[in-house]
């Protein structure tokens, strides 16, 4: 495999503030690379540098064999960009919007009209092709914006939050499309707040926190690493007693125990067996209402790596919208 994007020491400063701190990463040709991180981590600034909306303050960038800084206009002909907000022209119809976007890439009249019709069918928008963009629903707008991003068959597609704020059916359609593009060999750079999307779609994931890439790995490896830890959660009844310390003393294999009101979460490097814990609670007269084994997911990896709770991330996203 060849890296289609190679960033070395990529840096972006705004005055004294270093938004992206000399990051190194590469993206293989044909892969779906997920770029995850909390708001303000430097995701958008990095995408802007990769797509030509921001000039790096330092470092080198190679995209599809071209200098991603010096030859950015050539690079822009090879990439497709789908921003997090649908930014087509309100007054123009769905069809005209697509044809216009194709014109920006120098596509001939016949070719751009054929491709526009093809995409409208693919996104189930052919019935509404003559409707102005402003009359489209949120899901339809999102689909048309994605269609505009791929009308020129880009080698690399930058997708920023493709499924945020749209209905389940449209989101499913978009996920299918991403998978289809991937199967055809398109390299996809995906940012999303939906960890399930990243887990389902991405080959590799990079985590960016406070302007630094702190982890890049395959989804499989990330989950395997997370699953090396065993988690069990207990919901207990009765008077509030601080049990975390007692649990850690009684079970040396426990590496972490957290208690919040009546919920206790324990983490162990070894496989957890329920019975000894039940006995532990029983001898202390504490009734266990619920006990469950938790299988760590990519979401847990995200929380661990970035230190950001998913609920906070979603709230941030809602606030942004």
């Amino acid at each position, binding site marked *: 495999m060849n890296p289609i994007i190679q960033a070395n020491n990529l840096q972006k400063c*705004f005055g004294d503030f270093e938004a992206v701190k000399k990051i190194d990463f590469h993206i293989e040709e044909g892969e779906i690379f997920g770029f995850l991180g909390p708001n303000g981590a430097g995701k958008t600034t990095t995408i802007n540098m990769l*797509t*030509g*909306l*921001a*000039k790096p303050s330092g470092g080198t960038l190679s995209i599809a064999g071209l200098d991603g800084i010096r030859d950015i*206009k*050539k690079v*822009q*002909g090879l990439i497709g*960009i789908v*921003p997090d*907000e649908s*930014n*087509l*022209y*309100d*007054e*123009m119809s769905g069809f005209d919007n697509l044809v*216009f*976007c194709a*014109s*920006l*890439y*120098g*596509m*001939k009249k016949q070719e751009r009209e054929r491709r526009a019709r093809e995409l409208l069918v693919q996104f189930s928008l052919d019935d509404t092709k003559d409707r102005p963009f402003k009359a489209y629903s949120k899901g339809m707008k999102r689909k048309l914006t994605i269609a*505009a991003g791929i009308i020129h068959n880009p080698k690399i597609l930058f997708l920023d939050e493709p499924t945020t704020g749209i209905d389940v059916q449209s989101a499913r359609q978009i996920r299918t499309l991403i998978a289809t593009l991937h199967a055809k060999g398109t390299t996809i750079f995906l940012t999303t707040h939906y960890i399930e999307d990243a887990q389902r779609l991405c080959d590799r994931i990079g985590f960016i926190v406070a302007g630094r890439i702190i982890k890049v790995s395959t989804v499989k490896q990330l989950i395997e690493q997370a699953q090396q830890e065993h988690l069990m959660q207990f919901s207990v009844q009765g008077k509030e007693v601080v049990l975390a310390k007692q649990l850690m003393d009684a079970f040396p294999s426990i590496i972490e125990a957290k208690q919040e009101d009546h919920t206790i979460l324990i983490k162990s490097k070894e496989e957890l067996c329920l019975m000894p814990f039940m006995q532990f609670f029983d001898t202390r007269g504490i009734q266990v209402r619920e006990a469950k084994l938790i299988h760590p997911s990519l979401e847990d990896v995200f929380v661990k790596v970035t230190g950001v709770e998913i609920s906070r991330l979603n709230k941030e996203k809602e606030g942004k919208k």
Partner: protein
Amino acid sequence: MKAHILAFWAILKKDMQNYYLKPPNISWGIIFPVSWTLMFFIRSQQAVDIRFILAGVMAMSVLFGTTSMLSVTITFERKSRSFERLLLSPISLNLLMLAKTTGAILFGIINAFIPVLFASFLIDLGGINYLMLLLSVVFIAVTSTFLGLFIAVSVSEVFEAQTFSNFFRFPMVFLCGLFLPIENLPVFLRPLSYLLPLTYGADLLKYSINNEASIHMAISIPILLLFCCFLFFLSTHNIKKRWIY
């Protein structure tokens, strides 16, 4: 090259359809010059006056039409982020801005000829140097449009674009010598007049209509060309600095 021409044409056509040929803008393009024309023509006592104020009405129609339209449309597209789409396309920034400004320039040129059309029903327009008239209108339209571009790059809200435009437009109208000869202005204001592109454009316009000019066209034309280049490159420089940060 062909691809660039295609993109240029697509942007120009899109702007024409989306903004300049919309009924409210067509009516603005007609009502504004007609109102100015009527106002001055009614004030005029005789035919010769109409001929003398024609240059002023034409220049104002172009100035107000182009600066308003371009600064508002670009600010609007920036707000809706559709301008980002253009910045991310594989065409050079200079070509993109030329495509964006050509629509406003054409709009301004058409606006300029509405008072001429109106005047043609009232007075004899014989003796006008139409080639020079067109050249001066083009110069005024280009410099005003690029001024509108400069304004658009400097603001972030549509209402700011309007306010900032007036900050330039009204002083320009009074200082450019169209309605009050520069020689009659207070001494301390005269240097300011010569810093305005409209002064040179209006003078050329007066020359083409009434065959009288206070600045020789061998001076006016190069200065206007310099203004066009300066305003365009200043704007693109600001775009690179502010929008491709």
